[in-house]
């Protein structure tokens, strides 16, 4: 790929593509300069760690630590009192792991559990992208934490930042062979697209500094300015869309032959969630299914899709830098042509496939290979011991102490205890019962997700993880009144429009607008293939149930057999259908009178 790197204009591109990119290169965003000057992500981080009076790092280094898998945050609950008490903000780091496919051994689990109790806030937070993150790790504990993570043969490289992030793979516990193929591809992509800079080992593990070297040897795929923006890859196995493939930059859909063996992959490109309130040229977008590729071409396709984005992506405006905007600007055809040119072959059209849902199936299942799998619901992914509630941290630690299979984190913030031999099942069931791990959760709750938001996330405009459980209490009461308590409806909340919990493809999407205020999105598809539409703007939290109540009443009475809530609202014309990103902001609001 070296012959294509950062070469402008791309040889196959039209003059328009080259001119546009060239113009943007003359007005690079601040982050591009930070990356360029960082010496392959080193910056002044090593020095910042030696400044004991401050728990923070500089703004520029704050951008660089993302590439190392962490964000500088502060406890926003404590902000008002700190100045008065002559204390700096309560800075601490969020540390996100890189766990391809979300697969962990029991041994690794035990190390991660110990880190959570020693250096973080006593919890492991399962994310929406099959990994764990820690909150509340103070600067003086960063190196210890990273060394402990390294001791578990894990790392945090590229868990955040303008690089290929953690690669997801279907958690599917049924089709063992297809899961294995999906996991293998996810792992291979994760390894292949991993930044090669020695900065991480050098800074966190006191590794030896390797000086010098050209792009070709230090970062053969990325170069010194990495990507214009984050890049997210997933691998799905139909009929489950548990990885939410349409919400990611690049996806592979397993196409199986008659005997259930892998025939190849449909390739999806250009999905993404983030947008900015009030800026119509930013929007979530569902991925296009671009082509079909043979199993042996998949890794190359992954690399090339990423490097075309590296070269064509917008480096002037970070708000328009994701692959979804690149595809909107240059068109899917031009993008595909460049990918095929760089791979050196033309691809077939996509094969038929069908997704049924984007959630997890809970409880015990048995795979094709006779192994047993237990999917546990973890509310908002927060693995900790709740006073008077489930003892998730302790319970899962106890399971890890006896479990010889593996754990899989799902893209829905849940945990799967995988590959349990039949004779071990009773022992694990006893631990599940002892620690209340499957304490009753209603249907809506089991189909819910929330991002972290307050108090740690610096981007949050409103509560999310701390508020959604309460809202669901009220909504479940409302659903019960309408006789809908057992109906599966997806609901997701985020504290800001960046969309970590993928709210725009939930049937009920709530996005923080300001303290206690949310934008309500409705009409998305249950299988995650269609975006919702802004239904009500800036709704007070106390009014959310009131707004939804008449729609749920209508759904109960007017739906056709098996019709999903999101589909119903679109069919009956309460909300306009969002066909894709560019019309996400059109025809918003309630389009039909409510009785």
């Amino acid at each position, binding site marked *: 790929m070296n012959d294509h790197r950062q070469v402008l204009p791309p040889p196959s591109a039209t003059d328009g593509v080259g001119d546009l990119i060239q113009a943007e290169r003359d007005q690079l965003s601040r982050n591009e300069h930070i990356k360029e000057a960082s010496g392959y992500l080193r910056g002044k981080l090593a020095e910042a760690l030696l400044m*004991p*009076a*401050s*728990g923070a790092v500089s703004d520029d280094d704050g951008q660089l630590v993302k590439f190392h898998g962490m964000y500088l945050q502060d*406890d926003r609950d*404590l902000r008002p*009192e*700190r*100045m*008065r*008490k*002559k*204390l*700096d903000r*309560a*800075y*601490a780091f969020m540390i996100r792991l890189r766990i391809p496919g979300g697969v962990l051994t029991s041994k690794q689990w035990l190390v991660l559990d110990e880190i959570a109790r*020693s*250096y973080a806030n006593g919890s492991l937070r399962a994310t929406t992208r099959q990994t764990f993150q820690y909150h509340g790790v*103070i600067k*003086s*504990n960063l190196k*210890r934490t990273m060394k402990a993570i390294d001791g578990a043969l894990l790392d945090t490289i590229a868990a955040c930042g303008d690089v290929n992030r953690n690669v997801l793979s279907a958690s599917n516990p049924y089709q063992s062979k297809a899961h294995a193929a999906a996991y293998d591809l996810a792992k291979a992509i994760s390894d292949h697209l991993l930044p090669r800079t020695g900065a991480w080992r050098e800074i966190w593990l006191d590794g030896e500094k390797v000086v010098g070297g050209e792009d070709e040897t230090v970062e053969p795929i990325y170069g010194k300015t990495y990507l214009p923006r984050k890049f997210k890859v997933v691998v799905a196995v139909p009929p489950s869309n548990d990885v939410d493939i349409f919400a990611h930059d690049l996806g592979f859909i397993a196409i199986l032959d008659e005997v259930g063996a892998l025939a190849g992959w449909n390739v999806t490109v250009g999905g993404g969630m983030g947008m900015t309130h009030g800026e119509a040229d930013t929007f979530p977008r569902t991925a296009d299914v671009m082509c079909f590729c043979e199993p042996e071409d998949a890794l190359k396709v992954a690399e090339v899709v990423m490097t075309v984005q590296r070269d064509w992506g917008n480096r002037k405006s970070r708000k328009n830098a994701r692959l979804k905007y690149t595809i909107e600007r240059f068109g899917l055809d031009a993008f595909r042509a460049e990918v095929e040119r760089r791979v050196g072959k033309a691809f077939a059209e996509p094969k038929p496939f069908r997704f049924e849902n984007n959630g997890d199936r809970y409880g015990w299942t048995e795979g094709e290979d006779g192994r047993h799998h237990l999917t546990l619901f973890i509310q908002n992914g927060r693995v900790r011991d709740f006073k008077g509630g489930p003892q998730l941290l302790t319970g899962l630690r106890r399971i890890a102490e006896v479990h010889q299979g593996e754990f899989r984190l799902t893209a829905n913030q849940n945990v799967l205890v995988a590959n349990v031999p039949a004779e071990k099942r009773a022992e694990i069931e006893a631990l599940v019962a002892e620690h209340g791990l499957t304490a009753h959760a209603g249907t809506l709750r089991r189909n819910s997700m929330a991002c972290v938001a307050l108090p740690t996330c610096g981007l949050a405009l409103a509560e999310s993880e701390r508020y959604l459980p309460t809202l669901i209490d009220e909504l479940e009461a409302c659903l019960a009144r309408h006789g809908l308590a057992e109906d599966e409806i997806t609901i997701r909340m985020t504290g800001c429009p960046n969309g970590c919990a993928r709210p725009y493809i939930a049937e009920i999407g709530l996005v923080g607008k300001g303290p206690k205020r949310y934008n309500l999105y409705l009409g998305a598809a249950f299988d995650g293939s269609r975006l919702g539409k802004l239904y009500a703007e800036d709704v007070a939290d106390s009014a959310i149930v009131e707004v939804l109540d008449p729609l749920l009443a209508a759904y109960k009475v007017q739906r056709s057999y098996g019709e999903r809530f999101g589909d119903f609202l679109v069919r009956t014309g309460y909300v306009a259908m969002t066909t894709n990103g560019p019309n996400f902001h059109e025809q918003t609001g309630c389009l039909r009178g409510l009785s």
Partner: protein
Amino acid sequence: MSTRLLPRHAPFENDALAALDQVLAVASRVQRTWLLDYLTAVSDLPAQGTRDADVSVGEVVEYVNLNSSRSDQTTMHVAVAFPDGAPPYRPGSVLDLIGIDGESVPARVLPVASSRREVVDEVHALMPVRTGDAAIVERLRLGSQVRVRIREDAEFRLPAALGTDVIMIGVEAGVAPYRALTQERRALGAGGRSWLFFGGRRFTHDFLYQLEWQAALADGSLTRMDVAFSHDQPERIGVEDRLFERREELVDWIENGASLSICAAPKSADRAHFGLLKAVADIKACSLEVAVGHVADLASQGRFNQRHP
């Protein structure tokens, strides 16, 4: 020589103070008492007789717990304003809190945490709240009229010489005198370097005066800082560990004439003292007994002292 020291606000006062300290270091007890009494009479230095200082009445203008609301400790920062100017005091002084709003309270001795040269009409003191402080805690509030006596602790003399390097070792409220000294040295433009070792329980919740130390490091009035927080990691880490970690530079500073001072509760002070001895013993390749001798020498030269807040 001494007569040249005396004029109030004289331009050479700073150097004079330095010279005075040298005089005091070698003076006999009687000579010292005489000198200090004489100086007090003619300058703005505080009265020296431990119980004879005047009682002043001031108003509490700042009363805030410096520990975060998530801390299990309470350390009150008490700022008292005196409309007609604060009584004279020097870094290292203590404040006896005698009465609140016209009522007597069981006398409480608080370490002074400010320099008059910076806060002018105020005195700041730290009150680590312990069991037994109920009577004070119940009554003291913003706006309280307090009766206080500010006096020197005869056993605790902070180095006044501005050209001298100082190593300050403070745990929890023991950091008070070093805030005073840092303010003083900033106000007078001290030429010597300063190095603060601060210890507490948790970085996020117990870092007393964190913002001020950051500012002091930025403006150069504090040259270096090391911190130790005992509850931030599985094993206990205290200032003694930092002293040992930094032993090479620490001994280097001492050999260059630095003064040392420890202010901490008895247990912590003992640990810090032991850490210092270990550091000296390690660098000088001597036994702990010999290191004790070195530190005793420093003490006899007036370059090492220790107090409990």
